[in-house]
């Protein structure tokens, strides 16, 4: 089994053996995080540009740590406040980065398809999708499956995962459904119909309108972030009503399998999609997800950027 990818734009590019190779690699990387000196020289001399057109703290910092632990030179190109706000096109930004010698570009953008657009324009740099619009967020999906996988004896076969929340506006859910299914898990979606695409089937998951039924027997319950402005758009009435019906509290979690994992991509809204008792409870993997994120991104960068031949 060898790794054939230079880029990662979405999970659907990966086969199951490739995904498993990456997860195995992430285990080694996570071991590194426990060492007193966390740095290895795998990407020494490589230039990685973090090109973030949207504010994102966790994903950017997670990538930046992964890049630094692998010894890469890192540039954070905050697109607001640089040439893009002066009206430079994305095409010109791409060519500029390449002229500066970027070996990889990690891109976060509010518009779907931007990572694919960059891959088309860049001749030699690797492109990593750090989230495009409400379309895809493949590294989040990889870290999510990795977190569950390592807690379940490295197998997700036959697991039931309930994803609850704002599916319509979520970049996480589209990639997560693909990733969980690729490894043999079943995914149920729940949330108000106004926060669902009309055709949920297209995502490859079943929609269950009743949140209690959705989490019934689930091995993991994954809460999506509710952005408070959605209430103002009239998609649901109030945060309070949302919390009472869809929020993960101890009562709802009692319907899931005993010891079911609680997950969230962060940042969490306590008292909206998740109650503090659940977020901080013994089955919460939320902080483990954060740590896994660094390891998984290290594994990905290492595999895609020629680490195998080093």
């Amino acid at each position, binding site marked *: 089994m060898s790794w054939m990818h230079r880029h990662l734009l979405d999970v659907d590019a990966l086969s199951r053996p490739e995904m498993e190779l990456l997860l195995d690699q992430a285990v080694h990387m996570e071991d590194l995080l426990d060492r007193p000196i966390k740095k290895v020289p795998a990407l020494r001399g490589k230039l990685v540009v973090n090109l973030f057109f949207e504010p994102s703290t966790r994903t950017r910092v997670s990538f930046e740590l992964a890049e630094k632990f692998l010894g890469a030179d890192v540039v954070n190109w905050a697109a607001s406040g640089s040439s893009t706000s002066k009206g430079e096109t994305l095409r010109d930004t791409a060519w500029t980065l390449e002229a500066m010698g970027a070996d990889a570009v990690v891109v976060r*953008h509010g518009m*779907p398809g931007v990572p694919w657009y960059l891959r088309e324009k860049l001749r030699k740099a690797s492109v990593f999708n750090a989230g495009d619009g*409400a*379309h895809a967020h493949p590294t989040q999906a990889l870290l999510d499956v990795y977190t569950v996988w390592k807690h379940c004896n490295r197998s997700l076969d036959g697991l039931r995962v309930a994803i609850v929340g704002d599916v319509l506006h979520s970049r996480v859910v*589209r990639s997560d459904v693909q990733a969980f299914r690729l490894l043999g898990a079943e995914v149920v979606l729940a949330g108000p119909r106004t926060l669902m695409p*009309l055709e949920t089937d297209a995502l490859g998951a079943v929609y269950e309108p009743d949140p209690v039924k959705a989490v019934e027997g689930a091995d993991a319950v994954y809460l999506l972030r509710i952005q408070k402005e959605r209430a103002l758009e009239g998609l649901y009435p109030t945060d309070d009503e949302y919390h009472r019906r869809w929020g993960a509290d101890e009562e709802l979690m009692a319907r899931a399998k005993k010891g079911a994992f609680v997950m969230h991509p962060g940042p969490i809204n306590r008292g909206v999609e998740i109650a503090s008792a659940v977020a901080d409870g013994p089955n919460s993997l939320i902080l483990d997800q954060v740590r896994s994120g660094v390891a998984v991104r290290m594994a990905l960068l290492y595999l895609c950027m020629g680490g195998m031949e080093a």
Partner: protein
Amino acid sequence: MSTERMERCCGGEVPLLLKGGRIFDGERFLDGVTDVLLEDGRVRALGKDLPSPEGAKELQLAGLLVCPGFIDLHGHFRDPGQTWCEDLVSGSLAAAAGGYAVAVAMPNTLPPLDNDALVRDVIERGRRAGGARILPAGCVSKERKGEEMAELAAMADAGAVFFTDDGAPVLRARLLRNALLYTKDLGVRVLEHPEEKDLTKSAQVTEGRCSALSGMRGFPISAEVLGVLRALVLARETNCAVHLTHVSTAAALEAIRAAKADGVEVTCDVTPHHLVLSEEDVLRSNLHAAFKVNPPLRSTADRDALWRGIADGTVDAIATDHAPWHEDEKDLPFQEANFGIASYECAVGAVLDYRRNAEPEVPLERLLALWTSRPGALLPQSAAFPGRLAEGLPAHVTVVDPESAFRVDPALWRSKARITPYKGRHFTGRPVLTVVAGKIVFSALEGGAVRV
């Protein structure tokens, strides 16, 4: 130059004898007729083994389809105002190369075509452009703002062939209703872009699989259906005609089918891209902006329903909605790019090729009528593009080679557009000769054979 001399040098030319083709008169293929003689801008004779008059140019067209000049009811020339994207000359030559003898120009220019002076300007410059004849539509509303009625009668007198606020529906239902009534006796139809805007705010792709998988806002089917229903209800109540353009969904077409059966004087067109492409192409392209268009590319079920609408006669025309943009407006991430697909120079080929390969049950005559007699019946008579071939009618001819294969290469286009979803596609079947008023405005024939 006197008007008379101008007519002679631009219209008359030498007589043209088209020999040995299959003659399609706008409705059917004619038995026992192989030749068409064009002289002084008119069809002089149809027959078999017609003698060649003195000085006539003779073209051997064995195996080719000789049709009335193709009519396109819907195109954007970006002139005046955005001539880096297209202008009347590039658009006219592109349309001619696509087999169109006449192209209707939408009035959403800068400034919008909302008065008779601008209508005359487009007609005059279009006549000199040298390719397809350009006939403008005028705006329904002043400045295309959807509020007050533009000078519709003055524009009709100046030669406007439709009234529309295309690019958008007529904003106010009251204005649409009044426009239908006001134009009823002018002989010029209202052409409506059916869309309920309240449902399509920041929409990018069709609602359904494409919006679900891309995470972009969807154009709901209901937005088009509501636009169609509004027009149908108003046309029925006022007993006026209305034309619905670029209908893209099975549900909207069904509403039109029912209204037609009920006697409402409604007509509609569909675009080549909605007949040939679908949301699956948007997804397969990884959200490439070349596939961004309004109305959006729909489901494969909608696409198939449009073909059934052609088969049962519900559809009255195939119109390109040729919408050229410069790379600066189109070589962008999907959401940032403008809506619109440029297609004059490959649209007919795309449709013919789809019919050939996907085998919808549509006879060739029925399809050809949608580029000729059916849209011809929707233009004012004074436009003199009846979409028919008969003795004494104007000499507009399009010759189609059903076997000619080509690859779409926008780098070679006469249009200024370089981005199209058809780029690199191979199609079989295309127009090879376009004649307007007896004059050849496009030819891919060489010594009687098709030039590759």
